């Protein structure tokens, strides 16, 4: 073991690289984050909002970027590339090339004077050419690291030997023209590739007039236009005349699903991207008319279809199924689209602006990386990985995540990153971490007894807040409040710059309380707390006012009232902060064992990852057999047999000495909290009950096939589900007689009232089974009744293959569903007559089918509800488990120590389930690999002199955390058990209890600060 290194090298610092780095660093692994550009962050900083929640992209990313920058275990190498790898997994020798920055990062204070003075303007790649930057610059406003760098190919001095202006302006003396490229040698245990993806360049698409017509833009350019910090400050205008567009068109699949240009794959994210942009654009321009021209809308992710529906119904976005032939600019300066409808008729429509929804493509750099590292790429230039090992490259010890091995959206990238970490730890020498030691260099200031000196920072959040609320006015108002010593409005409170400002102000004004008015404490409170802690204040001397999620975003049409409310919220925050006291966090020990609920593919994968990392795992399965839904899958696009894979997996799991498999088990109760859970299993049918102790829980309860009688399912043996059909194919046990016509009906139960979601895998599954059928019965006619074909990612080519096989695709809409009738009511194996309206021929098509195959939806198991209650975690409206944050915490619950994966989260494919299962394991490991974590400081306290010992609180507390001492007859809090809910406090008759951080006095002052009662003195 000792020969393995406890370090990992990560190539690429986009969201995937960042997530992987943070997970590893939390496990105590040393991380080298190698990034080609001058900053970490990747693509996310370029985005304005994210679907399907419209969350602000930079806002949610920023805390993770800062965390990366300040984590002592993470070393960031910007302007660097991995050149060479030798050695073996566990002990790789890597050479990275760090390019010269020409600015000394230690001396640079990022004041920006040099950039003002630099005479050389160059294209700003971050703003995709919509703006210029200087030859000395920083990549974008919130770059990390913040220091400037010089573009050596553009700098006058470095190219022509003249200028040196920046050197003269830099007061810090940070400019160093002598800087050299250097090679750095590193030894690491494993390598994770997260080098990302590139947008497709539509320059070759002359017929769309990109670059020829100024109002034809790519979706990425449009995104920058929408962004408040972008080149147009969030005001979308036409480049041709500077006016707001009134009519907007989106053209989908530009550079995707196009065999002609070697891109026979779907970029997976562009449909949702366009829907999001059309919604956001409508928010910017009130009476905007937008249309999306598309082939299929692929809204296959969790809650995507609801978003799609919202765009159509609520925002009036028009969806036009068609193919756009070309765009011509009219003499009036409008863009005329020529497009063909399904029926084949050609139409024309004029627009002010056209957005090309460009696809995603493999980076050119992959080629070089593949040669340098000896890893294989797939036919499209993406890093190659297999369906049953989705995060592995062809080289042992080198893993891949993010979009580098195929198009992914943000949560999928995050999932794959955590998943890759679970793979990487097998090659590391993990050691269980103790408590993080306090940084002795910053002693905590003693503020007890001091008069409050409050600093208030009000965030613009780009235009997210400032677009509605008068931020300056709010900040000024804060200055009039008692005890407020400093107030300031800031662009992005969470940017590293601003965090530094906050620290500086604490110093300058000797602040002892800080209030930030910004987005929401849910995502950003930890970051700010940590920041003030770095300035020597106890983290609990912080208070946040939620003026975005619960104000500016909720009152977009009422700027004045929203400003008044923001002032109130700030005033309340200030009032509460006056009473804040420094609190101590007690350590909670972590039991290193894990409980995994569900023995399907996901559960087994998670269990195996944890066990391989050296942790005892209880794997419980309600049925008497492991395998879950995977037991019904017999085919796979790439010839590997799923059943062989399953067999191996079951064998590995059952034989692993760290895994105890408990089959036929039912959970009676789960109690406890992070690090200390207790789960009891029911006794019965020859089994004894069990009590399991464990530190974390992974929920992998899977999904169920939707039960239905629609389309006469169950009325004839010739009407079956896809699952049954797959078994039929496997056993070659087809209904008797000729199999002339087979009709497949998609979306049975999905995407309709009651199940407003896409079951994601049915299109690919049906395509796969149809191809299998063609293999054995090439003469059979296959008819495919569908709503949208959603073969996203690399499954697209199989759809094309099926089309080429001559399959008939018939699109139906929810209001003209196919009709299935039995031909002979009296027999149990009646053939069925299927009538589908075909929009292409504009008439009904009637098929006498020998077999009808229904793609039934994936349901959330009813039992989820019970489990959710036991675990105290939420479900979404569809009964699926709801993660802590749909974008950046896709496998965590808000409750610490509980994680989710697989179908329990939402429908997904086998490779995706595995990636998520590994991700859940990896997130769990960030806790299991520590001996203890710190509890919250906001717990209950007893003021003994007031306590009458009535013991009423004892009866209230759900955790037995408070008890009356039988001798002293006063209540005593067990601080390790108290969760800080405050239930006892509110019940105490003597006012002897209080909740730290939420004391009665504080709460009173909060609503008293809004005193509205007009008083007048009478008498004397």
């Amino acid at each position, binding site marked *: 073991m000792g020969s393995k290194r406890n370090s990992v090298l990560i190539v690429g610092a986009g969201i995937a690289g960042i997530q992987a780095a943070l997970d590893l660093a939390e496990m105590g692994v040393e991380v080298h984050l190698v990034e080609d550009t001058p900053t970490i962050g990747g693509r996310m900083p370029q985005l304005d909002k994210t679907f399907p*929640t*419209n969350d602000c992209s930079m806002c949610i990313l920023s805390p993770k970027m800062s965390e990366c920058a300040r984590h002592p275990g993470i070393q960031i190498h910007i302007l660097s590339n991995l050149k060479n790898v030798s050695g073996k997994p566990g002990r790789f020798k890597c050479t990275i090339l760090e390019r010269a920055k020409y600015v000394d990062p230690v001396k640079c204070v990022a004041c920006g004077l040099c950039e003002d003075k630099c005479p050389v303007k160059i294209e700003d790649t971050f703003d995709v050419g919509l703006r210029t930057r200087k030859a000395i610059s920083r990549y974008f406003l919130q770059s990390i690291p913040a220091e400037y760098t010089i573009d050596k190919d553009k700098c006058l001095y470095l190219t022509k030997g003249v200028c040196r202006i920046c050197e003269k302006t830099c007061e810090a003396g940070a400019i160093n023209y002598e800087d050299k490229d250097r090679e750095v040698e590193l030894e690491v245990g494993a390598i994770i590739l997260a080098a990302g993806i590139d947008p497709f360049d539509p320059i070759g698409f002359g017929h769309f007039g990109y670059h020829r017509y100024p109002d034809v833009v790519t979706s990425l350019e449009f995104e920058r236009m929408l962004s408040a910090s972008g080149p147009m400050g969030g005001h979308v205008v036409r480049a041709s005349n500077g006016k707001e567009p009134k009519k907007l068109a989106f053209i989908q699949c530009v550079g995707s699903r196009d065999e002609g240009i070697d891109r026979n794959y779907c970029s997976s994210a562009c449909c949702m991207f366009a829907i999001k942009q059309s919604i956001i654009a409508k*928010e910017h321009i009130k009476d905007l008319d937008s249309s999306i021209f598309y082939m299929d809308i692929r809204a296959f992710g969790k809650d995507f279809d609801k978003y799609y529906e919202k765009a159509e119904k609520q925002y009036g976005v028009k969806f036009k199924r068609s193919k756009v032939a070309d765009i011509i600019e009219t003499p009036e300066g409008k863009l005329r689209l020529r497009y063909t409808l399904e029926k084949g008729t050609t139409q024309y429509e004029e627009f002010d602006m056209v957005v090309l929804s460009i696809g995603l493509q493999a980076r050119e750099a992959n080629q070089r990386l593949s040669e340098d590292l000896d890893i294989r790429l797939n036919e499209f230039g993406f890093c190659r990985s297999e369906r049953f090992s989705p995060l592995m490259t062809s080289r042992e010890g080198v893993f891949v995540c993010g979009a580098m091995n195929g198009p992914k959206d943000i949560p999928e990238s995050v999932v794959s990153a955590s998943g890759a970490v679970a793979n990487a730890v097998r090659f590391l020498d993990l050691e269980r971490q103790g408590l993080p030691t306090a940084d002795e260099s910053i002693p905590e200031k003693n503020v007890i007894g001091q008069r409050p000196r409050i600093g208030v920072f009000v965030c613009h959040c780009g235009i997210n807040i400032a677009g509605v609320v008068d931020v300056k006015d709010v900040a000024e108002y804060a200055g009039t409040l008692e005890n407020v010593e400093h107030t300031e409005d800031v662009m992005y409170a969470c940017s590293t710059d601003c965090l530094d400002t906050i620290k500086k102000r604490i110093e300058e004004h000797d602040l002892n309380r800080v209030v930030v008015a910004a987005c*929401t*404490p*849910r995502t950003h409170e930890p970051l700010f707390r940590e920041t003030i802690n770095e300035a020597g204040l106890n983290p609990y001397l912080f208070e946040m006012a*939620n003026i*975005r*999620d*619960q*104000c500016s*975003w*909720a*009152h*977009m*049409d*009422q700027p004045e*009232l929203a400003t*008044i*409310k923001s002032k*109130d*919220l700030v005033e*309340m925050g200030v009032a509460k902060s006056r009473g804040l006291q420094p609190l101590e966090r007690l350590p909670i020990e972590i039991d290193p064992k894990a409980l995994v609920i569900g023995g399907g593919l996901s559960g087994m994968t998670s269990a195996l990852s944890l066990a391989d990392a050296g942790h005892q795992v209880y794997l419980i399965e309600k049925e008497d057999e492991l395998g879950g839904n995977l037991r019904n899958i017999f085919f796979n696009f790439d010839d590997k047999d799923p059943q062989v894979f399953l067999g191996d997996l079951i064998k590995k799991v059952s034989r692993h000495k760290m895994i105890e498999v408990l089959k036929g088990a039912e959970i009676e109760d789960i109690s406890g909290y992070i690090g200390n859970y207790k789960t009891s299993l029911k006794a019965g049918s020859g089994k004894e009950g069990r009590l399991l102790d464990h530190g974390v829980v992974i929920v992998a309860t899977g999904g169920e096939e939707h039960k239905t009688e629609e389309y006469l399912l169950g009325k004839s043996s010739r009407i079956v589900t896809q699952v049954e059909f797959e078994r039929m194919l496997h056993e070659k046990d087809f209904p008797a007689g000729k199999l002339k016509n087979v009709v497949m009906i998609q979306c049975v139960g999905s995407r309709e009232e009651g199940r407003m979601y896409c079951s994601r895998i049915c299109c690919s599954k049906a395509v796969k089974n149809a191809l299998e059928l063609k293999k054995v019965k090439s003469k059979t006619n296959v008819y495919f009744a569908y709503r949208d074909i959603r073969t996203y990612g690399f499954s697209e080519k199989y759809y094309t293959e099926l089309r080429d096989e001559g399959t008939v695709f018939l699109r139906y809409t929810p209001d003209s569903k196919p009709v299935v009738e039995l031909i002979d009511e009296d027999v149990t194996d009646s053939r069925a007559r299927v009538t589908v309206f075909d929009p292409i021929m504009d008439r009904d098509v009637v098929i006498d089918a020998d077999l009808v195959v229904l793609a039934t939806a994936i349901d959330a198991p009813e039992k989820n509800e019970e489990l*959710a*209650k036991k675990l*105290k975690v*939420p*479900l*979404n409206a569809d009964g699926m488990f*709801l993660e802590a944050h749909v974008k950046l915490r896709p496998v965590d619950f*808000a409750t610490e120590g509980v994680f989710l994966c697989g179908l329990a989260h939402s429908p997904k494919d086998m490779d995706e389930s595995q990636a998520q299962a590994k991700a859940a394991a990896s997130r769990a490991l960030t806790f299991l690999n520590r001996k203890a974590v710190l509890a919250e400081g*906001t717990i209950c306290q007893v003021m003994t002199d007031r306590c009458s010992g009535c013991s009423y609180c004892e009866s*209230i507390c*759900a*955790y037995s955390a408070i008890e009356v001492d039988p001798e002293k007859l006063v209540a005593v809090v067990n601080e390790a058990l108290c*969760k*800080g*809910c*405050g*239930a006892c*406090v*509110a*019940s105490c008759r003597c006012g002897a209890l209080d*909740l730290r951080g*939420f004391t*009665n006095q504080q*709460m*009173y002052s*909060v*609503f*008293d600060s*809004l*005193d*509205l*009662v*007009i*008083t*007048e*003195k*009478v008498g004397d």
Partner: protein
Amino acid sequence: MDKKYVPRITSFLCKWCSYTGADLAGTSRLQYPTAIIPIKVMCSSRVDPVFILRAFLKGSDGVLLGGCHPGDCHYETGNYHTRRRFAIVKTVFESLGLEAERIRLSWISASEGPKFARVANEFTETIIAMGENPVKKKIFL
């Protein structure tokens, strides 16, 4: 709706469900009146009946109490206590001749952004219909 009169509704929201639901309403850009003034508490059971009375006596036109659905409280049983206490506060309001319709208890889960917005809208309308909190009018000391 009278444009000028914006009531003030002090809203106690538990961190785990209703506060998150309110955030979700915001991220989904569901619009509701500015009358809703949120105060985060760890659990609805933290809300001492005195809070409700005090907020009311300090001139809030309405008091909203948001918690997890029964059975879903992050602290096991917190909201059961809330429910009982709330019932008592209502009775107290009634017996003191205060308008009990000015206080409302709602179960709003973390995924119920739309419900939060709905409750916010409905409740504000109710309060507007009732007019200002009478205690807000002058008191003499």
